[in-house]
């Protein structure tokens, strides 16, 4: 916030006779300092990218082909948008970034279905959860039961459905899994993963277009495209599972975005940008193939992403650490998100503000702010003492790492959720109370829906922090190198930053300027995508306020 009126500065402030030189120098110094910090880090990033991709090893003609087919059209379009159609420019960057971010997410989901829960396990999980939810809802409708009975139903039914009693009663989930006939893996994924997403798509389209027909068409199209995979996937050389994941995780958000842009009719020409780049890439690949040009010998290639660590730099890969990071993030999110949001709701909506209880709550708030500043290495010690030495869990397993990092980001989640909840205008709460809603009903139907974008932004930023944390992982004994990807939440794992740290200890030039750079680049791409998404989300909702 500078002056309210810029012209005041021009009238009295920047008067040439008084101290133009000093003022200008000061302004330049301030700008210079800002840019210096950014510039330094972007230079480092450029170095990393160069080391990981080694552009100089490519044929000059290869670079020529890339420049002509991909870079020039992209720059031309970008220039056009900048000059003549700024809204389209924004659409263009989102339309380019969204598929990339969605593909990364699809990779994560693919890892989940490959290593953590098989399609059949997922089927059993979804069916059991649905049955439990249905049973609870039915009980709630039919019987005006006392609080005790209801609490009993709410705890016992999900337990029976998902966990069972070890050794005595098998859970519904286990029963389904041991059924003699199960649908094919791809079919069960279609029914329990693609179908709910399709239903959500149909519901959303129905709401925004205010037409039942459009909703049915959108939902049906999603199912059909996903189901096509059973036939089409083998033809393109994919497994049916990958096809279903790709279509639902990548095609659905992209489709929704395109629909939104077309519906609003603002900056439609921006959609041409990713198309132009895709065509450029295809043409480039054809040209390179025909003319037999050799590209750069990149370190960061498919091989690197899908193999385990190796002593030979060229063979080393990051895959098990990638799987470990995905699994750890699941634990972190499951542990920190509900607790963090719950604590924030308590502090903002329920907590007393006066008297002795009020000052205790104030102490809790100061405590939360302070916890956010405790060094991560101390949280590592806490995790070691709490989960390993006291609870007796094995050091270095996914749950221990995830819970430790979850404790670390808990205060960050709480603080950002508090800010989001504070931003909900009080008048809306009063309106809800005025209609006779209870406090919890107000929170659930009025406050949380409005605050959710802000809460999600904060959570994504916190999860980004969690992915990059290394010191707590070192303290709880996460392995430097794991050659076999973890297959349960209780197996040993390594995570991307831990793997990078292990490589930094191998003082070989090929590791420093090749493998390490490639690993850093993977981590940075994931993080920048997450942070970028969070910042975009925040800007979008701030503007709409």
């Amino acid at each position, binding site marked *: 916030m500078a002056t309210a009126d810029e012209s005041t500065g021009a009238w009295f402030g920047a008067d040439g006779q008084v101290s133009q030189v000093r003022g200008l120098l000061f302004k330049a110094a301030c700008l210079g300092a800002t840019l210096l910090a950014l510039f330094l880090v972007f230079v480092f990033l450029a170095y990393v990218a160069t080391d990981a991709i080694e552009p100089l090893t490519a044929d000059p003609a290869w670079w020529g082909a890339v420049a002509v087919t991909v870079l020039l059209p992209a720059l031309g379009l970008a220039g056009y948008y900048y000059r003549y159609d700024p809204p389209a420019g924004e659409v263009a960057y989102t339309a380019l970034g969204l598929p990339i971010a969605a593909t990364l997410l699809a990779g994560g989901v693919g890892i989940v279905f490959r290593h953590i829960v098989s399609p059949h396990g997922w089927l059993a999980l979804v069916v059991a959860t649905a049955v439990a939810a249905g049973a609870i809802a039915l009980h709630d409708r039919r019987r005006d039961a006392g609080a005790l009975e209801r609490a009993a139903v709410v705890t016992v039914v999900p337990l029976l459905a998902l966990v069972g009693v070890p050794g005595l009663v098998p859970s519904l989930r286990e029963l389904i899994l041991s059924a003699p006939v199960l649908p094919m893996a791809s079919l069960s994924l279609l029914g329990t993963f693609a179908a709910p997403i399709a239903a959500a798509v149909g519901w959303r389209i129905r709401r925004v277009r205010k037409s039942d027909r459009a909703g049915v068409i959108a939902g049906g199209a999603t199912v059909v495209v996903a189901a096509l995979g059973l036939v089409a996937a083998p033809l393109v050389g994919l497994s049916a599972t990958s096809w279903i994941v790709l279509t639902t995780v990548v095609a659905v958000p992209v489709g929704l975005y395109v629909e939104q842009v077309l519906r609003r009719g603002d900056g439609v020409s921006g959609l041409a940008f990713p198309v132009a780049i895709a065509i450029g890439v295809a043409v480039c690949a054809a040209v390179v193939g025909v003319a037999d040009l050799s590209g750069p010998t990149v370190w960061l290639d498919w091989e690197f992403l899908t193999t385990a660590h190796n002593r030979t730099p060229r063979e080393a890969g990051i895959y098990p650490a990638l799987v470990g990071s995905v699994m750890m993030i699941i634990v972190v999110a499951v542990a920190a998100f509900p607790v963090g949001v719950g604590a924030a709701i308590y502090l903002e909506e329920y907590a007393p503000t006066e008297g002795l209880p009020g000052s205790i709550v104030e102490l809790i708030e100061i405590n939360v702010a*302070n916890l956010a500043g405790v060094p991560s290495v101390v949280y590592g010690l806490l995790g070691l003492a709490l989960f390993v030495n006291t609870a007796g869990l094995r050091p270095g397993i996914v749950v221990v790492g995830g819970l430790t990092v979850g404790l670390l980001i808990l205060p960050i989640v709480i603080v950002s959720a508090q800010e989001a909840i504070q931003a909900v205008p009080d008048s809306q709460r009063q309106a809800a109370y005025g209609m006779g809603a209870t406090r919890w009903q107000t929170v659930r139907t009025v406050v949380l829906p409005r605050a959710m974008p802000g809460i999600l932004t904060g959570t994504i930023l916190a999860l980004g922090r969690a992915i990059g944390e290394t010191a707590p992982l070192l303290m709880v004994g996460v392995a430097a190198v794991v050659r076999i990807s973890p297959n349960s939440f209780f197996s040993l794992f390594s995570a991307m930053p831990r793997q990078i740290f292990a490589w930094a200890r191998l003082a070989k030039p090929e590791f420093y300027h090749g493998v390490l750079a490639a690993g850093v680049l993977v981590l940075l791409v994931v993080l920048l995508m997450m942070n970028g998404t969070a910042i975009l989300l925040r800007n979008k909702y701030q503007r709409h306020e």
Partner: protein
Amino acid sequence: MSNTPIDADLTRSAHGRIAKERLYHGLLFACAALTVLVTVSIIATLAIDAVDFFQRVAPVAFFTGTEWVLRSENPILGILPLVSATLVVTIVSALVAIPIGTAAAVYLSEYASDRMRSVLKPALEILAGIPTVVYGFFALVYLTPWLQQIGLDLSLFNLLSASIMVGIMIIPMVSSISEDAMSAVPDSLRQAGYGLGATKFEVSTKIVLPASISGIFSSYILALSRAIGETMIVVVAGGSRARMFDPSNPLANLFNSGQTMTAAMVQAVTTDLSGGTAGYYSMFAIGLTLFAITFTMNLLSNRIAARYREEYQ
């Protein structure tokens, strides 16, 4: 809003509804109470194991010893070399981060156009999102060779490039909190300055900066506390040899490897020290010291920041 009929609950017995409200109230309170539990367990676990440690090593020897040699048998555990290295890192990183961060905050708050700010602010935020192990890698693989090229006599692992990197890492923290403080200065103060014929430079340095000084100060303290607790940069780029600060040759401390408190904790847990030794327990004693220092600084920063918030609301 959602389609759930709210009247459904109104037809129920009030008894069930109150019980439900109580249940949610209790659950949410438990979530908030968990944070207190975290603090208490941090203090408890650190303290219990630190007591264990001080039964093996006398506290006086620990806090006044000037030599730190970590090994399974007969370790020499004096924390001063670690403290001195931590101080060196903190001071150098402050020299980097405070001027740059403050200048960036002044620019963003007073000079930048909306368009400029909408680019620079997210860019600075992205700096804050880079993991520290990556910053450590930058320091070790790129910054140290650069500094060696411009003629500094650095060893491969050294505190100088580690501290510069820590400084770069904490710039966003200084700039964003300071900017918040400067933006909170009411516009009427600026207008009054312009009304008296002050230039923009004078308004920035003589009105806005002094008016927001407590917020700026609290950002410094917070950033320093972050620098003290920073681990991965100093572990990757700073080396692992604990050295006592030598006042007769300060540059040698910077140009050679050194070990901070956090780095010593990592070393204690990553080398093959067996569980029961004094060396292993030393990390809890260091952790407790570190926690006490940073917690105090954060508390102080909160207090100072609370002052400026009250003034202008």
